[in-house]
């Protein structure tokens, strides 16, 4: 996992679509260094003031090159688009799309692993390097949600991550970076990866982790949290959810005693993480640590 910086050259796959256009304009306005886009049918034209290429491979060869690609691509097109970006030599790929067939996702993950490409998502709302740049559909430009500060935040959910960020700002603090990892069961950047990236990110004094029921990512991250000098706070969504039902996110499902709220809370507390009862408590918790 690499946190996006403003010097990173960013390619937008699916730049000419409605969502691609809307969010590319906002990313550019905030400071994201968008250098090109991809749409095979509109290659050679310009969109959002950057050149449109036929493929990511072409963008790397004929354009200015890029480090990161962000995808606004429908579910059944993601596999081909991601393999294109990996072949082109992308270092980072952010996949926002939800409902991609899981075998397609696994195919992309295997190809990315071989080439050392870092994947964030799928089914993520993106990430924000506060005051610098962002990727995806995050309201980075809303100053009541994102304000430059010293709290690193990671979340599986976009909406809940946004709420947590807003609570942090209204309590008088700000964030260094926000990483949305996505709500799917199989994702590139895990809770542990994001926690480690924030731990190592400059200007970060503590980390707020927003997890949810299902899978074992929070339990895995607890092992890393135990080694951290920086304080970690966590909120886990879904304590009131019934077992065996997918709660909106494909990954948010409790099977038997696996992936339960209790198991995650226990693992995190054993690692020295403060588990918050509700997201509204984050301000008080930060106050004790940051003053």
């Amino acid at each position, binding site marked *: 996992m690499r946190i996006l910086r403003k010097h990173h050259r960013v390619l937008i796959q699916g730049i000419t679509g409605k969502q691609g256009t809307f969010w590319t304009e906002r990313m550019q306005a905030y400071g994201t260094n968008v250098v090109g886009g991809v749409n095979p049918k509109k290659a050679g034209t310009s969109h959002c003031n950057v050149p449109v290429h036929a493929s990511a491979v072409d963008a790397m060869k004929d354009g200015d090159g890029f480090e990161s690609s962000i995808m606004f691509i429908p579910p059944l097109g993601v596999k081909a688009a991601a393999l294109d970006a990996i072949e082109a030599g992308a270092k980072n790929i952010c996949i926002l799309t939800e409902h991609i067939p899981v075998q397609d996702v696994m195919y992309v993950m295997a190809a990315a692993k071989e080439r050392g490409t870092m994947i964030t998502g799928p089914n993520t709302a993106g990430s924000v390097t506060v005051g610098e740049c962002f990727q995806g559909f995050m309201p980075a430009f809303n100053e009541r949600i994102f304000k430059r500060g010293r709290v690193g935040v990671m979340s599986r959910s976009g909406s809940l991550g946004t709420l947590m960020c807003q609570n942090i700002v209204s309590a008088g603090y700000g964030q260094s970076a926000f990483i949305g990892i996505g709500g799917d069961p199989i994702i590139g950047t895990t809770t542990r990866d994001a926690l480690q990236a924030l731990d190592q990110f400059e200007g970060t004094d503590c980390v707020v982790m927003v997890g949810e029921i299902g899978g074992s990512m929070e339990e895995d991250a607890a092992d890393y949290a135990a080694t951290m000098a920086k304080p970690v706070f966590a909120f886990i*969504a879904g304590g*009131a959810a019934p077992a065996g039902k997918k709660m909106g996110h494909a990954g948010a499902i409790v099977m038997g005693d696996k992936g339960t709220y209790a198991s995650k809370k226990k693992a995190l507390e054993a690692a020295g993480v403060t588990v918050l009862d509700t997201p*509204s408590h984050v301000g008080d918790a930060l106050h004790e640590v940051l003053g």
Partner: protein
Amino acid sequence: MNFEEYAAKPILAAAGIAVPASQLATTPEQAAKACAAIGQVVIKAQVPTGKRGKAGGIQLADTPDQAAQHAARIIGMDIGGHRVEKVLVEAMSDIAFEYYAAILNDPASKGPMLMFSTEGGMDIEEIAAESPEKLRTATIDIRRGLSAETAQALIGGLDLNGANDAIADVLLKLYDAYRTNDAELLEINPLIQTRSGTIVALDCKFVLDDSAIKRQPELAAKGTPDRLTALEKIGEDNVIKYIELDGNVAVLANGAGLTMTTMDVVRHHGGAPANFCEIGGEAYTKGKVALEMVLGKPGVKSLVVNFCGAFARCDVMMDGLLNAWEELKPELPVFFSIAGTGDEEAIRMLKERLDMDPYPNMDAASKAAVDAARAGAGT
């Protein structure tokens, strides 16, 4: 999407894995007829859940009369909350040995995982808990597929009663079926070796990846749809995620994580959520049907609305909700928490059209909704 045994086994057969002869029956008469055609049979309840045998849903029959008697008892039985509507009448197998084989999507390796055990017939969770050394696993690079070498290595050194090659061949076919059918899980338990040495799939569990339904329409038509309540069905028809729960505090929010958390906070303040209902920005025009659903649950005493705009804008969602509110004119006490993109505009609209202010955060709004539900339930 789950597939019952009778719908899952043809997937194995199509991949070249042997399955016993069988016929589906929905009446004792059909079961008797099937038995007459097949011979000695096993009558198996068809329900999308395990533990059928323990519940008495699997019986042996030597004659058509016995088959009819068993079918009459099994059809209509309740197994794990599922009413048995049909039975599979299947040729009895001459079992010498039982094995376990499965392929599933593994979040840890981010690829397919092949599993094999000589402890067939047992619950895989039991094998993993009680004798993990008897469960062999291999992770697979999905780009290269399962090689004959990997399949052989997985069962290497095991005494499979002379059937190693035949079982390795079944594993390769199982992997093909997994790939062809966009499986999330494809499991054979037990995979048997008959006294004559044939390898046969005696049961099959198949879960189709929900995200692949769109590209597998013919296959998905054979699956068992989730059992939905009447309200959940309305949600599905309108592409709104709605899950009916037991409580009396209705919940309406945007985003899966935020909606789950609103339920948690209601619970934290001593209340019981009546539902999970998520509307996003693109679904804002569905405010009316969403509101109808959350209010449609009997016994609901209050409603908490929690919007946190990011991709979905608060003002757009609020407009849809207020339009619905003005049309439906519900009497129910409602409590709002509004934050994020478009919040100022949404708060203004709430004041103008309902003469209400939001609570400062979701805890305050949820607590107020819990208190109102308690007061409402008391009267």
